[in-house]
């Protein structure tokens, strides 16, 4: 049911890197990493890493906790497995919201 006034906090779809504990969704896209320092891991590397940790299209993700400083890193459950990751990496995971 669409809200009359869209809540900016509850946009749909949303980015995991901007999510908060309690947010729940299904991954619709894992992007290749952004414009990081070329010396660092390549963008492709980040995508592969996310995939290997189970961040794959169709997986259910629940945000469980956030770190004590600046809410970073975050702890999530991906298809039943608990993973901790930084928000910077989580920016590459896009989810479709599910009702809690």
């Amino acid at each position, binding site marked *: 049911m669409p809200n009359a006034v869209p809540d900016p906090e509850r946009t749909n779809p949303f980015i995991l890197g901007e999510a908060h504990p309690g947010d729940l969704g299904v991954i619709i896209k894992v992007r290749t990493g952004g414009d990081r320092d070329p*010396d660092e891991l390549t963008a492709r590397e980040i995508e592969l890493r996310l995939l290997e*940790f*189970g961040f794959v299209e169709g997986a259910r993700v629940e945000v469980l906790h956030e770190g004590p400083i600046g809410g970073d890193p975050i702890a999530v459950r991906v298809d039943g*497995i608990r993973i901790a990751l930084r928000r910077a990496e989580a920016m590459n995971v896009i989810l479709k919201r599910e009702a809690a």
Partner: protein
Amino acid sequence: MTPTRIATVALVGNPNCGKTALFNALTGGRQKVANYAGVTVERKEGLANLPTGRQLRILDLPGTYSLRARSPDEVITRDAVLGRLAGEPPPDVIICVADATNLGLVLRLALELKTTGLPMVFVLNMIDIAERQGIEIDVEALSRELGAPVTATVATRKKGLEALLELAATQADGSSATPPSGWREPAASEVRVAHRQARDLMRTAVRPPSRPDTLTGRLDSLLLHPVGGVAVLLGLLFLMFQAVFTWAAPAQDLIEAGFAALGVGAEAILPDGWMTGLVVDGLIAGVGSVLVFLPQILILFLFILLLEDSGYMARAAFLMDRIMGGAGLHGRAFIPLLSSFACAVPGIMSTRVIDSRRDRLTTILTAPLMTCSARIPVYTLIISALIPNRTVGGVLSLQGLVMFSLYAAGILAALGVAFLIRKVFWRGGSEPFMMQLPDYKRPEPGNVLRNLGQKAWAFISRAGRIILPLMVLVWALSSWPAPPEGAEGPDIAYSAAGRLGHWLEPIFAPIGFSWEMVVALIPGMAAREVAVAALGAIYAVGGEEGALAGILARQWSLASGLAFLAWYVFAPQCVATLAVVKRETGGWLWPSIMFAYMLGLAYAAAFLVFQASRALGLA
């Protein structure tokens, strides 16, 4: 293949699925089993005996999520599996170890392992926990879909091992020559396909838990809480250091009394002369003054082992990531740095779990600044000798406060150095931080005790191998040559050590070190705690009576004592650390840099402390 050849079986799986526990159970081997993602950094090999009398060689490999290696750890796993390690043939069989309660990621790994063409056995470890949670696994369906035999084990209770070994042996016999490896690095699209396959497999073969683990979730809501979690972490660290200093005291008194009695006994038996001096002043006093710290070291390691085995270490890394990140360190550096409070050598070895070379080097360079247990003897001696035993503000012990500031100085220096390295040498973005948070487990007492026994033995044998010979050397150098007839002052002033100390004294005068202190530093370059034993020997030979702390209280000024403490926060006085840095970085460059920067910091810190104390009139 001749029937006499022993087939090699490699254990591969995600971190924390129980590979090491399984390795120990299969081989009866003695190895560290812990719960932090990636603690197994060493290659471990052992022999397993089948009931038939046949033997298999078992290889324990670091945990990984894929063969596309990202850290030095995972490179070892990949190369071992693919037979790329120099001088090592590829394994005959892979045992893919799975945590039966967390199958999602390992099934994808199993599919990737299949592409190597090596025969495989898929083992559902931790089946006890899976059963408790009511997870139902259709072994036949799994076996059919994976194209590999599947069996279940409880590594910690040694259940299901025979069946596993038999399957592995059968698989080894079935394989003909070494198959050509079909593995190549999968592209993102192939990883996606494999995930889909793995998910289908899960759907057909695994029924989700009817009684899921709620403990981990409930514990995490406290232990990962932004406020509560940090409070618990600080409380744990506080408890740990409190325990090191209070619980250990009775045992330490006992050891001290034991060695004192031994010295008295030896003196009674041995003939007068240099033999007595060597045995009583050199050996017994020297070794006793180091072994007395065994209780503290054991308590420290007990805490670290319990935290690792319970699954808490990964949470600590989560909570600390941002703080460490501020100094340019990786959250994963927390575990190596925490281990370095016990000893920098295992700490530096455990940096292999850090993916990026830069982050790893920064961690290696800063790890020796953490107050390791070898500094405890030096700190406790000087503090008890020179800092008055009174309270501040009615509750805090002044001695404890000084000890705490020494630890704090080490931590702050490490953060500062890491920050500088980041800013000056390695500018650029930060590394990704991604790790699994394992389910909490009750630590296995047998496992913890076995590891603790290893630590105790390592420390005692170190005292025997390194400290004992050094003590004899120090004693000899400080006893010979004997003073000329009618010489004034203590005999040791005329000895080789005394002359060397006098000769070096001008260099150390600006930081307030007497020649005795300088002499103690020389063997102390090999291992920090030796300085305590050396001081004991120097003053004993010098004819001083009574406990060492009492002697120092008479001989040293407070300013000199504080400068000595400051020196010890930074000084690179540990051959073993430098050797391990050389091994881990593959050359003398980084150990040399480490030695130089730590020596520079030590001199600067001691200079500042000495001059400031004198200016404040603490002479």
